[in-house]
């Protein structure tokens, strides 16, 4: 069992857990992920590690309530325990001194971009960060990102935070202004990562993205997470989750992300009809 030490609501439907997992925290590196299972009936849910504290033996996990399982996660409180947690899984980010790096986080993707940005900053890079969300009340980790960035741009779809528009608008401006960029790391929704990769392709700037496909075991055993990279099929869980954005077949990734859409809706109906209303439970 793994205890939730601390819980915080970061933004609209986005929550942060600090969870006790000393053996995993001792090994975790930026870019890696864990798989959790809340209880016996639960799915195995992959979550990118948002931070780790080796002294406290804890991991930080940030998740957005988008479906049945993440809503159930959101209902848990500090002191509650989850049944399973395994990791650290996947390959760590390649941290090197590239020069000037643009780190882009969209929505809940800002959570995993943060430890990578911090590590890149510590490695001596000049960091330009661009983070974006639907609106101000969906935006997370603004202060943390500011601390590890030389420049921080903020965008929101409705203009309630930073510049109105998308993270790609800022990237496009930077590219068109002729800003010298040595490397880009982008994490967020598939459409965002695809758009970033398309923008940077003509400039031949190496662009790393982190894919989060459907997974079961997370150790290379099931192949559910296969992604088409160039002419090869890779397993995101063991070969990734980071890949060269210019080689990702985005159409395959988008189609595969929808494989269980109907089942996801059935699971949601099941929860809303299932009683056990916890609206008035105190956080």
């Amino acid at each position, binding site marked *: 069992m793994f205890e939730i030490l601390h819980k915080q609501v970061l933004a609209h439907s986005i929550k942060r857990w600090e969870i006790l997992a000393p*053996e*995993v925290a001792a*090994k975790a590196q930026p870019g890696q992920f864990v798989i959790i*299972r809340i209880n016996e*009936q*639960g*799915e*195995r849910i992959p979550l990118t590690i948002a931070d780790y504290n080796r002294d406290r033996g804890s991991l930080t996990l940030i998740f957005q309530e988008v479906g*049945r*399982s993440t809503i159930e996660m959101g209902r848990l409180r500090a002191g509650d325990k989850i*049944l*399973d*947690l*395994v*990791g*650290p*899984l996947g390959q760590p980010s390649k941290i090197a001194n590239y020069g000037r790096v643009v780190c882009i986080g969209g929505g809940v993707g800002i959570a995993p971009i943060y430890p990578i940005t911090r590590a890149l900053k510590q490695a001596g890079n000049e960091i330009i960060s661009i983070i974006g969300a639907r609106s101000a009340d969906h935006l997370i980790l603004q202060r943390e990102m500011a601390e590890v960035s030389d420049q921080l741009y903020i965008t929101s779809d409705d203009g309630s935070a930073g510049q109105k528009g998308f993270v790609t608008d800022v990237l496009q401006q930077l590219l068109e202004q002729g800003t010298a960029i040595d490397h880009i790391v982008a994490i967020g929704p598939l459409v965002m990562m695809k758009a970033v990769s398309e923008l940077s392709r003509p400039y031949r700037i190496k662009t790393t993205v982190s894919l989060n496909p459907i997974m*079961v*075991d997370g*150790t*290379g*055993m*099931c*192949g*559910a997470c*296969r992604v*088409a990279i160039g002419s090869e*099929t890779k397993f995101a869980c*063991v070969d990734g989750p980071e890949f060269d954005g210019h080689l990702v077949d985005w159409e*395959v990734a988008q*189609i*595969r992300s*929808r*494989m*269980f859409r*109907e*089942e*996801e809706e*059935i*699971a949601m109906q*099941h929860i809303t009809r299932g009683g056990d209303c916890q609206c008035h439970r105190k956080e």
Partner: protein
Amino acid sequence: MSPERVKVDRQVMPSLEAVQRINSFDEVALGYSEEQAVLEASRCLNCKKPLCIEGCPVEINIPAFINFIKERKYADAIRTIKEKNNLPAICGRVCPQENQCEKRCVLGKKHQPVAIGNLERFVADWDMKQEGNTEPVQVSPSGKKVAIVGSGPAGLTAAADLARLGHQVTVFEALHTAGGVLVYGIPEFRLPKIIVEREIEGIRRLGVEIKTNMVVGKVHTVDELMAQGYAAVFIATGAGLPYFMNIPGENLNGVYSANEFLTRTNLMKAYLFPEYLTPIRLGKRVAVIGAGNVAMDSARTALRLGALESYIVYRRSEQEMPARKDEIEHAREEGVQFKLLTSPVEIRGDENGWVRSMICQRFELGEPDESGRRRPVAIPGSEYEMEVDTVIMAIGQGPNPLIGQTTPDLQLNRHGNIVADANTGQTSKPGVFAGGDIVTGAATVIQAMGAGKKAARAIHEYLQNI
């Protein structure tokens, strides 16, 4: 040979009716009644030179345990089996006896061989029904710690044997449940999970600690385990990496590896969705590519999940199918259809990216290949379209690379399997042993158990000398 003995026909194991079966995940083969078991045991000739023992990878004293059944001394029978086999209820269900002990049975030359597997299962099931079955043997602790990576048949067998020799054994399992392929791969209707749980409980009672959610190679490397005081490490990580055919359309929605399909169903209980939250999505016409046990399990599972048509698509003929005879028979009874000498060359999708059909090619058998089986040769121009909406790839599994990648001085072969001595499991790295599918490539439960036994013996010897 006394003539009366062979008058008794081989006892047929009762099984659920096919119509009942495909609506549930209940176990299909129901096991012998006591009278049937005693009758079947009476068929054994108790040969002076029992060839059946030679056919058993773990060398169970087969005539001895059968003789005890004949005398209704079931406790003695199970003790005899457990001297060599720590998982008898599992082996009695999933061993390919027809290629092992029963193949060597003298009776089989003129009549049907003794149903050794069915008798093993009978006495193992009897044992589980007894209160406080087989008390753990008290042994003096050796003070030596052994780490075992993987809790499948090879790992569990080695763990039990080493614990019986007094060593302190910790098993590291990557998944959240112990058992490896016994829990994620083999379906409930062939091997009920309660049976696996009880067998594992028995191994825990021997003092073995099983740590789940531990991916060795990630959370600890082999070297770190040794630095933590484990004097020896046994790697039994199995064949966990699914193979695909590398044909167009394999990434369409509706294409599963058998590993994914079976893991969702067995380990994650997707057949109970949405009570259990892991989904599985299956069409009406399901094609399983391959004809081994994993393929049969997949095709039979598909029927239970509501498929109207379930096909085995295999490029060789019936004779070459690697599955156990019983499984092929059960599959056929349940309505699985066999498309033999056929293999897909492309999978086609609809406008939403879902499987719509397979382009298949027909084959004929040519000269025997290096495996001794006749090589399938494609017939040019024989392509045709087969309408299916789900495709399950059951063409084999390779070794998971995680341990190899993080243990630089561990020698691997060109397929990525760990190179280990066939008799001892000794690898290129001192103190590190390996066995089961990670060494041999995908094989059977009992072969993995045989490797676990040999490695346990060798590890025990190694621990005496350090």
